[in-house]
């Protein structure tokens, strides 16, 4: 399930529901990404998506993950709109028979979400507003999964 939402969500409740719905899967991996609170640097983070296009891209990479690893289920929740330090931006959950597949698929999905997913990100801090582009190391992380 893929959900792009401008409403705050509770990762704990969503992980709990995902776990319950995952039946006999022996392994659930989850990752929560939050707005970093760097001593007075980022005050708010604003994320924009292209409704339809953003979901289609995430769906395609989730389908790719299903081909690479034996997953029984995937949950991706991603925020848009304005968020403040500590607020969850993204939750990825993967369910599988065994831990390795769950961990790796979760990592793989996050690398896509951090670099290639169709989002535009603006941070507002003491120095004003800045649109942010991926860091070089984010691209490097994503290259790990090249076919």
């Amino acid at each position, binding site marked *: 399930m893929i959900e792009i939402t401008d409403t705050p969500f509770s990762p704990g409740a969503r992980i709990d529901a995902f776990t319950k719905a995952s039946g006999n899967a022996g392994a659930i991996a989850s990752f929560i*990404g939050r707005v970093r609170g760097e001593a007075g640097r980022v005050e708010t983070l604003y*994320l*924009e998506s*292209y409704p*339809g*296009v953003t979901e*289609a891209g995430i769906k395609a990479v989730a389908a790719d993950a299903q081909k690479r690893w034996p997953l029984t289920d995937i949950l991706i929740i*991603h*925020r848009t709109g304005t968020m403040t330090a500590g607020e969850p*931006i*993204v939750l990825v959950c993967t369910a599988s028979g065994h831990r390795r597949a769950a961990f790796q698929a979760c990592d793989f999905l996050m690398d896509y*979400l*951090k*670099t*290639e*997913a*169709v*989002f*535009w*990100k*603006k941070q507002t801090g003491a120095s004003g507003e800045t*649109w*942010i*582009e*991926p860091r070089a190391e*984010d691209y490097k992380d994503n290259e790990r999964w090249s076919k």
Partner: protein
Amino acid sequence: MIKVLYFGRLSDRAGRHEERLDLPQGVTHLSGLKNWLENSHDLGGALLDPSVKTMINQVLVHEDAALTGDEEIGFLPPVGGG
């Protein structure tokens, strides 16, 4: 009417996220529309920057596509991930 969507920094530059308009007189292709928008919104070359991608009806286009006047046209600066 066409629907034009500006994302990321382009929305700041254009002063809007979205607009609907009739295809301007004499504009038949994407390149013409970009030039027309550049002039009418004083975009300072932002749309012509090679890093900006264009989607027509949510599909990436790499060439100077012909327009019929009822498309959704999205202008996308490099995506930053989430």
